[in-house]
């Protein structure tokens, strides 16, 4: 929106790269949704899946969703950031290539090696699975390392381009303007601010992940070399929290760039906007102890930090991006079509999902909610109803050029996705209220009814997602890098 030139060449290779990300992303998301719905049906006693297979599926669902969310989010960031700074298509493809090799290793570890240590690979479980072997656990960890290397290459390319254009990440993040006394340069793109934030936090997050994965590999092959489980837990949750949050902060670039084209109201930077992104940069990295509130041996200041920053983390989302979206569309004469509906809905999903997450971050609540279905309840809210519509809306828009011809099927799929998705997440939260544990392959009779409601909702979400996914795939050949 803020630049008229295209610093990155619009080549057929670049277009193909974007199409590959979109096609693979949609395909994997749909497959992982089938996996998730199957898990819920197993908990509902409607699928006779043996516990070992269920936990393998759980591991695959988690790793697949998080990895694909990262790749698809990176594709949105690349799609728009290349309009402001020159980005390499080769690095973008290298990330995809390394990720695909990593995925093959992960699939082999789970499918052939029987690995079922969950995507969080909580030390020392990978080495003490009792059922899977050392090589299976190493294959899973090695696959994650390769994916991480791919992301680091991509972020390195983005960081170099930003440094060349703006001189420092400080300036790219707009901090010279936030702390300066002069007037703001309104042409500084929000995309650059968001991308810089993601580069800073995710490089550190992935490096922490790489460290803990290497330590895990060392422990796997040299069992006499052990590490402090609390340190490992801190590293794992720092990495996991930062990585999954970065997916949303990459995808939200689509909202900043696309909605103004519908409304004719540019989304420009302001001091609150820059302050919010600075706050997010710091808080995304510092808030991870809210995953460790039930580790009482943690220093008390970390527990307090976890609770307080968990609350504060919701403020930039709700006050800057959500209100910014509402202000941007209010009485704007926006033309509602599938991309615009999905993008606005995604901000609702993100904003609403923050609420149960913040409530769970209160120690007194966490004491009775931690590791219940409350947790997948809130993260599915802002991933299924926030991140995924954000990604879909952006991809639909990239394939639309002169306007999406909306059919009744599109509208039906959108509303089914939204309503059933909300029901699916509420079923999780309701289960959390009733203390139903998360990550249980076999349910007690009292919990099965909740799982059955969740399964019906998941099936409807899946059906709607298949329609949306197929619609997108058929339009993908028309994708444009300059839409």
């Amino acid at each position, binding site marked *: 929106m803020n630049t008229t030139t295209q610093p990155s060449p619009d080549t057929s290779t670049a277009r193909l790269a974007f199409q590959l990300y979109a096609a693979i992303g949609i395909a994997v998301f749909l497959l992982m949704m089938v996996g998730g719905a199957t898990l819920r049906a197993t908990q509902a006693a409607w699928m006779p899946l043996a*516990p070992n297979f269920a*936990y393998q599926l759980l591991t695959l669902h988690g790793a697949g969703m998080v990895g694909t969310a990262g790749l698809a989010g990176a594709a949105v960031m690349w799609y728009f950031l290349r309009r402001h700074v020159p980005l390499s298509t080769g690095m973008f493809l290298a990330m995809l290539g390394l990720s695909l090799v990593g995925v093959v290793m992960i699939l082999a570890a789970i499918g052939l090696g029987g690995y*079922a*240590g*969950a995507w*969080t690979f*909580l030390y020392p*479980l990978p080495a*003490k699975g*009792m059922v899977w072997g050392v090589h299976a656990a190493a294959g899973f960890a090695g696959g994650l390392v390769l994916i991480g290397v791919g992301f680091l290459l991509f972020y390195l390319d983005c960081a170099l381009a930003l440094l060349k254009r703006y001189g420092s990440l400080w300036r790219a993040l707009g901090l010279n303007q936030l702390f300066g006394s002069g007037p703001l340069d309104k042409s500084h793109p929000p995309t650059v601010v968001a991308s810089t934030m993601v580069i800073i936090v995710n490089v550190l997050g992935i490096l922490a992940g790489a460290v803990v994965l290497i330590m895990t590999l060392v422990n796997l092959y040299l069992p006499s070399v052990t590490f402090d*489980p*609390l340190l490992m*837990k801190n590293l794992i949750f720092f990495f996991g929290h930062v990585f999954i949050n970065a997916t949303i902060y990459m995808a939200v670039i689509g909202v900043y760039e696309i909605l103004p084209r519908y409304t004719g*109201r540019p989304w420009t930077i302001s001091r*609150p906007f820059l302050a919010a992104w600075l706050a997010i940069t710091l808080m995304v990295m510092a808030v991870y102890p809210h995953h*460790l509130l*039930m*580790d*009482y*041996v943690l220093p008390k200041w970390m*527990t*307090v930090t976890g*609770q307080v920053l968990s*609350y504060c983390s919701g*403020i930039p989302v709700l*006050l800057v991006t*959500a*209100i910014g979206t*509402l*202000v941007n569309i209010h*009485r*704007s*004469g*926006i033309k*509602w079509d599938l991309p615009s509906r999905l993008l606005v809905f995604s901000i*609702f999903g993100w*904003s*609403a999902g923050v*609420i*149960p997450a913040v*409530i769970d971050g*209160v*120690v*007194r*609540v966490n*004491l*009775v909610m*931690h590791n*219940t279905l409350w947790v997948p309840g809130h993260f599915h809210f802002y991933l299924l109803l926030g991140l995924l519509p954000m990604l879909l809306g952006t991809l639909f828009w990239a394939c639309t050029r002169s306007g999406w011809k909306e059919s009744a099927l599109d509208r039906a799929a959108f509303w089914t996705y939204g309503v059933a998705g909300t029901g699916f997440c509420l079923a999780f939260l*309701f289960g*959390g*209220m*009733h*203390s139903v*544990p998360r*990550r249980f*392959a*076999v349910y*007690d009779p*009292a919990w099965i009814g909740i799982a059955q409601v969740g399964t019906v909702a998941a099936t409807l979400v899946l059906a709607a997602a298949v329609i949306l996914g197929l619609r997108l795939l058929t339009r993908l050949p028309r994708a444009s890098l300059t839409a």
Partner: protein
Amino acid sequence: MQGLAWSLSLVLMAGVALIFLRVVAGASQPGGDAGTIAAAGYRWRDRLFWVVIVAGVAISFATLRKWPIPGHAAAAATPDVIVRAVGHQWRWELDRDTVRPGELVEFEVTSADVNHGFAIYRPEKSRILAQAQAMPGYTNKLQVRFDEPGDYEVLCLEYCGLAHHAMRAVIKVRADS
């Protein structure tokens, strides 16, 4: 506590939904002056910011002033009974499984192998009473006062491998123990 979290979440999420629905309903009508709308919207945003900050300070003070984890407060109460709870794949080892109603029981929770979650469920098993992580090499202390007699089931709430769901124990609260 669980009911409060659920109700509060529903109310606040419904509030967010209503605001979105209201704005979305009128969004396709043209004619709104962008500058006026932005000024009004950002005035609301600034007010809301201070409301959220004040509420945050109040909530933090109310929930953290008295340390929320019994057994880890600076002046923790002296327990009547200490129970050592050790997690193993996939069973709980309790050095004592029967206590009296009203006794302050301190669980010393740890693990012999991988991470586990030590969660105590009320007898009707619809609500968690309290929980702590069980981690190898560390001991988390958890103080619980069982007011009602009955069988309190212990479940593992940290995924620990293929029989995670079957890792259970029972704490019997008996007046005549």
